[in-house]
């Protein structure tokens, strides 16, 4: 007697899970290859002259207002909420400013700026490259002997690494200033007490810098990868844009978790 075969429904379900896993692994390997090719492209000069500067303008200058508005309001909200909560428990508001600056440098400045850039820059890169893909411009590039990754993703990669750093510094300043204004106007905290950088350690700055660098590298590679995978016509471009925003945002959150966790484990006791 042969062993009973699993029912067809179960088999189909297992097949579907397996297909999803295989697809996911394929995409993962391809993403890793894209990242490798992008980094290699930095050391080859196959990119159009002036393209890095043009991309820096698009990624940086054009996002300036967006980052300023969102981070300014986040800074106000965070200071307001923490003062409210501290008033309920201890009532001592003198430490809010220094601790806020510390948290801003090592956590919220890099991460929220990167989330905002993932939304704006990631969607932009995927929409642009995706439109080029579905209108067969990418194939035309390949036909004329140009590697699309070198030509399209690498300049955006260089520009994003530089401009994410610049935008993060700018965002920290804006959020800190906005937070200081809120603390002074709503809770009467003295400006000299608030704007005190004494608590910031080298550790915080290093953690923030590592985060900024990794976000700046992850966003253009993931978005460019999603753009190059676009299929079909306008629907495909829309789907690629969605995938880019979700992929880059998730990458920011997971990278933040990994880097902060490592930082916590490295940080010794009592310092």
């Amino acid at each position, binding site marked *: 007697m042969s062993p009973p075969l699993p029912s067809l429904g179960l088999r189909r379900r297992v097949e579907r899970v397996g297909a999803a896993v295989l697809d996911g692994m394929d995409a993962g390997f391809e993403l890793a290859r894209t990242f490798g090719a992008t980094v290699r492209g930095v050391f080859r000069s196959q990119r159009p002259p002036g393209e890095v500067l043009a991309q820096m303008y698009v990624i940086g200058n054009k996002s300036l207002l967006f980052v300023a508005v969102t981070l300014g309001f986040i800074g106000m909200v965070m200071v307001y909420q923490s003062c409210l909560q501290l008033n309920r428990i201890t009532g001592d508001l003198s430490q809010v400013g220094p601790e806020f600056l510390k948290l801003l440098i090592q956590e919220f400045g890099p991460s929220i700026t990167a989330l905002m850039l993932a939304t704006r820059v990631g969607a932009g890169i995927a929409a642009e490259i995706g439109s080029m893909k579905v209108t067969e411009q990418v194939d035309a590039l390949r036909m004329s002997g140009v590697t699309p990754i070198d030509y399209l993703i690498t300049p955006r990669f260089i520009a994003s690494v530089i401009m994410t750093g610049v935008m993060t510094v700018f965002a920290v300043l804006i959020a800190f200033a906005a937070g200081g204004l809120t603390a002074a106007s709503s809770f009467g905290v003295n400006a000299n007490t608030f704007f005190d950088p004494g608590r910031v350690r080298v550790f915080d700055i290093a953690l923030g810098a590592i985060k900024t660098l990794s976000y700046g590298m992850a966003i253009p590679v993931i978005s460019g990868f999603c753009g190059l995978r676009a299929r079909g016509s*306008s629907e495909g471009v829309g789907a690629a844009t969605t995938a880019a925003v979700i992929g880059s945002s998730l990458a920011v959150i997971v990278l933040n978790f990994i880097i902060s966790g490592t930082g916590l484990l490295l940080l010794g006791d009592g310092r």
Partner: protein
Amino acid sequence: MKAAGNLVAGTIESLGATAIHLSREVGGITLLLGRVLRCLVPPSMDGRELVRNMYRMGNRSLPIVALTAFFVGGIMVIQAGMYVKQFNAAGLVGWGAGYSIFREIGPVLIALMFSGRVGSNNTAELGTMTVTEQLDGLRALAIDPIRYLIVPRVVAMVVMLVVLTVLGILVAIVGGALFSSLLLDLEYSTFYYSLVDNLDWTDFLHGIVKSAVFGMSISLTSCYFGVSVRGGAIGVGRAVNAAVVAAAVSIMLLDFFLTYLLP
């Protein structure tokens, strides 16, 4: 001298253009809100379309929201953990992580992810329908596109974002408890009592009310940019970009005002 004059004129011109552009979009979104509200009193919309959208937008987004929330819980505990090591205050981890997840980070981050997945998808879909003239087709059949396409989407997004936020906050708290035990060697009961003793229902409801308002703004911006697409596949890409940016700005602005208004 003349170059400086040109520069000033150019700056003023671009400022004015931005202001006009912004007013047009804010006005368009407000008009859309008015039309949607008129269809909701008394409620008249396509029921099947509503259920289909709720499934597509809610159930299908659950994995991404749960994954985000889980890691966010971990991140909040790590941040609280740095203070624990500094001041030796393990009893405050649950409070710190819970307070920030309930009131701020939970609703805002889940809304941002929802806008990235559902809002941009919605804009792409409505945009594709617009550029392929399917909306005009509906109008030619005497079907009101607002009632048939937009109202079900708005209702589905508001309801589903609230549901996803409730679930996401729970997942984030579970993730926080798990990582505080793994990374900080904290007992689950310490985490639990620190959270329960210091927070109450108003903290939780604060976040839920925020998520309902965020759902409204995400749905309206994504529908507005979807139906006002011009110019083929490139136009759809540009509209999706504009929609996610507008949704992110409106989430941050509304978060600010709601924080002041709500208890």
